[in-house]
């Protein structure tokens, strides 16, 4: 056999080995194709309806779940809010038809219980959750999210909500929070005059301390430090590191991080600093080498920054898609490793559960999907295209199969639809057009 043939055989063998293992995921039982046949026809669907809200309130607070959940947040809630919340939780756990209003209700109950992260996730998917597009539930969700964003000083998100959905909110709350955000972020194009802002605040009877919020927005000086102390390279880097760490995650800009990382890169390359460490080690009787100590320094910097990045909303995809070198490159690599490993764990848990046929309540299924979604979003935000690729590769096709099972077996059409939409978006984002198309077609609208 000639060398050429050998190579060819090897390649064939490799391709075959890979494919038999890999392509197994694309079998006819895999998500995309099966749905078309298994999907219930439109004739079987119930006609459009407002919602099937259970009005079977057995306690004093009657009304739909969302109304009762909302009542938990009123200044003077209905008598015995604890009992109401517990009853709502029980009802939501058993619900066989999860729709936008019920997801919103679950979110409001979670918020009432102080489980804010859960509330954020749930209320974040209310808009367009089901085909009946419950405008009231969406509006309520956005209002809560905007108030919550203001609470966390996540002004960027508050601004986004205002600009995307302000029109749908006749109360003006979303626009008000967006206007506050404009002031907090000092964005010239977003600024309304302080007088207008005060007038807006007057019209916000539902927002606590609206005027105080205006005062804070228009007067606060911001967290920018006056001047970095000391002139030395190392102390400048440490000082800027301190500034970045002290900045609320929501206000951190990509450029701040890039600047800081460049400064650290200079520190790590500096011969003078290396010399200083060697001399100091000799004086102290330390056995560590300058190289090892600087590596530890770099590791600490990466670990500090990764904590900051994970909690914030900084977009790093642009950096991640370029050459990954220096502190920032290492940081993105490390984040990708970590986030992928975490996603792996979540997927193993999901797969094991689905394989074992352990069903959760619909709300429980929804939670597990939201948890995955958060992880996938974070990978894309921080690790760019390669993060999105790996994320998709990790969650698909199991999640696809899961969404279809939810549709077929549990008739959780709204939830499955939301998942289809998400999978289609994910696939589209990485040019996986065939999958994107299939899941777009799966959706009911």
């Amino acid at each position, binding site marked *: 056999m000639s060398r050429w043939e050998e190579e060819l055989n090897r390649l064939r063998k490799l391709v075959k080995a890979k494919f038999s293992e890999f392509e197994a995921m694309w079998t006819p039982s895999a998500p995309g194709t099966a749905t078309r046949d298994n999907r219930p026809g439109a004739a079987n669907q119930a006609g459009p309806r407002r919602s099937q809200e259970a009005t079977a309130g057995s306690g004093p607070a009657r009304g739909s779940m969302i109304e009762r959940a909302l009542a938990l*947040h*009123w*200044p*003077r809630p209905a008598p015995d809010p604890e009992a109401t919340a517990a009853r709502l939780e029980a009802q939501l756990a058993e619900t066989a038809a999860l729709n936008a209003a019920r997801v919103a209700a679950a979110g409001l109950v979670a918020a009432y219980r102080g489980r804010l992260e859960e509330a954020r996730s749930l209320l974040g998917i209310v808009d367009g959750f089901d085909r009946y597009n419950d405008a009231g539930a969406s509006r309520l969700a956005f*209002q*809560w999210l905007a*108030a*919550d964003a*203001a*609470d*966390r*000083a996540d002004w960027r998100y508050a601004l986004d909500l205002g600009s995307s959905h302000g029109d749908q909110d006749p109360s003006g709350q979303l626009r008000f929070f967006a206007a506050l955000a404009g002031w907090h972020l000092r964005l010239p194009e977003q600024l309304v005059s302080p007088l207008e802002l005060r007038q807006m605040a007057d019209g916000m*009877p*539902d*927002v*606590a*301390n*609206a005027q*105080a*919020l205006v005062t*804070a*927005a228009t007067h*606060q000086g*911001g*967290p920018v*430090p*006056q001047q970095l*102390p*000391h002139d*030395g390279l*190392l*102390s400048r880097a*440490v*000082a800027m*590191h*301190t*500034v970045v*760490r*002290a900045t*609320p995650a929501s206000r951190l800009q990509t450029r701040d991080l890039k600047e800081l990382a460049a400064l650290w890169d200079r520190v790590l390359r500096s011969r003078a600093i290396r010399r200083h*460490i060697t001399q*100091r*080690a000799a004086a*102290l*009787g*330390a*056995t*560590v080498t300058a190289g090892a*100590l600087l590596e*530890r*320094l770099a*590791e*600490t910097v990466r670990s*500090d920054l990764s904590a900051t990045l994970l909690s914030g909303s900084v977009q790093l995809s642009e950096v991640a898609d370029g050459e990954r070198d220096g502190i920032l490159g290492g940081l993105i690599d490390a984040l990708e490793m970590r986030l992928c490993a975490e996603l792996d764990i979540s997927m193993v848990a999901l797969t094991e559960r689905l394989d074992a046929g352990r069903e959760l309540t619909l709300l429980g299924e929804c939670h597990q999907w939201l948890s995955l979604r958060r992880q996938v979003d974070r990978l894309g935000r921080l690790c760019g295209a390669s993060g999105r690729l790996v994320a998709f590769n990790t969650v698909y096709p199991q999640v696809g199969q899961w969404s279809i099972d939810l549709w077929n077996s549990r008739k959780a059409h709204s939830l499955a639809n939301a998942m289809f939409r998400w999978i289609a978006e994910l696939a589209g984002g990485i040019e996986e057009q065939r999958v994107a198309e299939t899941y777009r077609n799966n959706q009911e609208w």
Partner: protein
Amino acid sequence: MSDRDALTDNPFFVLGLDPDCHPMEVERAGNTLAGLLELGVKRGASYTTPLGAFERTSEGIRQAAAELNDPNERLFYELWATVAPSDARIVRSAGPSTSWWSNG
């Protein structure tokens, strides 16, 4: 000891010492601060770092003393103590506390 925060757990800040202090000062500061803490004296209760003030604990004091007695650890933390705690000019802006619904 690698998961300790280089700034907020920095042993020089915890013990209130300069990066060029003598080893015996570490021993003394450790004992004195542990005493103040144990006797409930206010001035021993917290320490300042460039990221603000933090509560002092007996574990934190012991850990800090152990770290500064180890030359390798000490050298590492010296690098981070190049910014004095008094340079804590970075003020975290207090986020407005909104509650969604007005309290009337």
